[in-house]
């Protein structure tokens, strides 16, 4: 069983979010970064559990500059066998997906994991794009996954219930909450990670013709209005006229 886990680097969940350059760029000044929790807690940990139970190995892939190595090392400390960093600025979901697909093409992975989304831009795009580029089936938002031989049974939380899906490897899956539990690296793992390969690959030429024109922050000074609990008419009026929510 050969598994690839795609991981991205995201701001720490309590980071202050600011923008620079006429609100076109995220201001990384003073922000600490972590591995995207959906990639780490659910995708990576489940991948490790599957290889621990069935044999095999887990490789991490990330598209980004060398500063991302800190995040990748955490994945190695948690238990991945090796890692590949494709050395390029991840400018768009399509760009990232093309890089990973190009790398994965020759490696014949049985399963390619992503998190269901990254907690910064919340695109949920890369997994589906990799599947398309590699012509593989794609199961999104899976909250559990069992494996019997090369047949996987996955559950997806859908509106009002659960969908159970079965398919054979190879495939691409995006992992949602429920897939696994957080695994905290221990000191031995951190030291072992230093000896594990972290390979750097050159990026493929890939055009990305999209650009961010502006980030708009949610207005910070929206006042809270207190409404008398008996006065439903006023609540409906405010929701309709001011919030324009109904």
């Amino acid at each position, binding site marked *: 069983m050969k598994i690839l886990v795609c991981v991205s680097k995201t701001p720490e969940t309590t980071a202050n979010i600011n923008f620079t350059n006429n609100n076109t760029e995220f201001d990384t000044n003073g922000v600490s970064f972590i591995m995207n929790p959906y990639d780490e807690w659910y995708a990576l940990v489940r991948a490790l559990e599957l290889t621990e139970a069935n044999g095999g190995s887990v490789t991490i892939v990330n598209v980004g500059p060398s500063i991302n190595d800190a995040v990748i090392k955490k994945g190695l*400390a948690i238990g991945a066998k090796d890692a590949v960093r494709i050395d390029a600025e991840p400018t768009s979901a399509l760009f990232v997906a093309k890089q990973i697909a190009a790398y994965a093409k020759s490696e014949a992975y049985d399963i390619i994991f992503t998190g269901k989304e990254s907690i910064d831009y919340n695109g949920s795009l890369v997994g589906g794009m990799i599947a398309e580029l590699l012509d593989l089936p794609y199961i999104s938002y899976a909250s559990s996954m069992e494996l019997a031989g090369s047949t996987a049974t996955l559950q997806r939380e859908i509106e009002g219930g659960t969908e159970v899906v079965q398919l054979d490897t190879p495939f691409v899956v995006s992992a949602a909450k429920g897939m696994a539990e957080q695994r905290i690296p221990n000191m031995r793992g*951190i030291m072992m990670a230093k000896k594990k390969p972290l390979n750097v690959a050159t990026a493929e030429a890939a055009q990305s013709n999209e650009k961010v024109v502006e980030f708009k922050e949610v207005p910070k000074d929206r006042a809270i209005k207190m409404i008398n609990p008996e006065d439903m008419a006023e609540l409906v009026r405010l929701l309709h006229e001011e919030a324009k929510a109904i």
Partner: protein
Amino acid sequence: MYDNGTHVYTVEKSVKTDLFESHDHYNVDELLSDDHKLARDAVRDWVKAEVSPIIEDASEKAQCPLHLFKGLAEIGAFGPSLPEKYGCGGMDEIAYGVIMQELERGDSGIRSMASVQGSLAMYPIYRFGSEEQKMKWLPKMASGEIIGCFGLTEPDHGSNPAGMTTNIKDDGDSVILNGAKMWITNSPVADMAIVWAKNEEGRIKGVIVERGMKGFTTPEIHGKLSLRASITGELVFEDVRVPKANILPNVEGLKGPLSCLSKARYGIAWGAIGAAMDCYDSALRYSMQREQFGRPIAGFQLTQKKLAEMITEITKAQLLAWRLGSLANVGKATPAQISMAKRNNVNMALEIAREARQIHGGMGITSEYPIMRHMMNLETVLTYEGTHDIHLLITGMEVTGLNAFK
């Protein structure tokens, strides 16, 4: 771990979330390597998951969460800077420091459990033991299978350990150990103790005393109002026959126990920063939320004075600890330098706990917030492993060359 069935543990999990965020006013993180940050964050996550939900209850009930010995072992908190060949972490001294910082951010008692096992029980075996002793004890201590403790302080000899009366007498292949040690963290549950005792020539030797040796008992000390989540006891030796193979061969004299204390004090210098950070973080959050006179109390000058001084002192303590760690990494941290950092940082943390308590008002004295627990813990940390005053005299002797101890 030794369990005679009397160590109760009925602590309940709190549903409250640990909201701690670290505050890095001087970008001290940039002085740390990726591995240091990984170690720090791992222990921080572990504390949030395992310590924070139970610590207030454990502390209130004065019950040591004994299952955390296994958890501390799994995360790698026992002897992280000792070599990997003995089942330890093989990390550097700064990594050890940040681990202690994060454990003490949770609770000084939990940090004490790890300090004693790693620096006071494992370290002397590593530093002064035979290869056979190292292979016999260290891997099992790193994995938490065996819990150790350290006996230097006696009922009548605290700051003056050289006056100890615990002694060993030669008896063929064994020595006969008599005496008593006091204020021993982990002793009631320890499987073994590193005991410092005088031989017939009056020279101090280190002896590995094992649970089950006839005449060796470890009564628990009750009624502590500090470090309540950590278990403390005595070590009592009545004609205990200890094989000579259990004597640490490579040390004689006070430098044996003092070098262990240097190692532990080094960890405390870092650990205290954790307790201070927790108090500051809680005070900052509380003061932003608590409104009086129509606005958050954080907006008032006297609250800001407290908060600003807290983060200033934490930042200074961080830089002191980091520099000490850099010296320790190349074997150049002197006992006097360690004394200065231990004394300064523990006192800093205690002062911050007191200021933070004021910011929390009445809430600060409840177990809803960690402040009072940290404050009570730090009262112990201020005088254990060398008192606040003794460390001052060590600095005094260092700068004047004159001994003010006697």
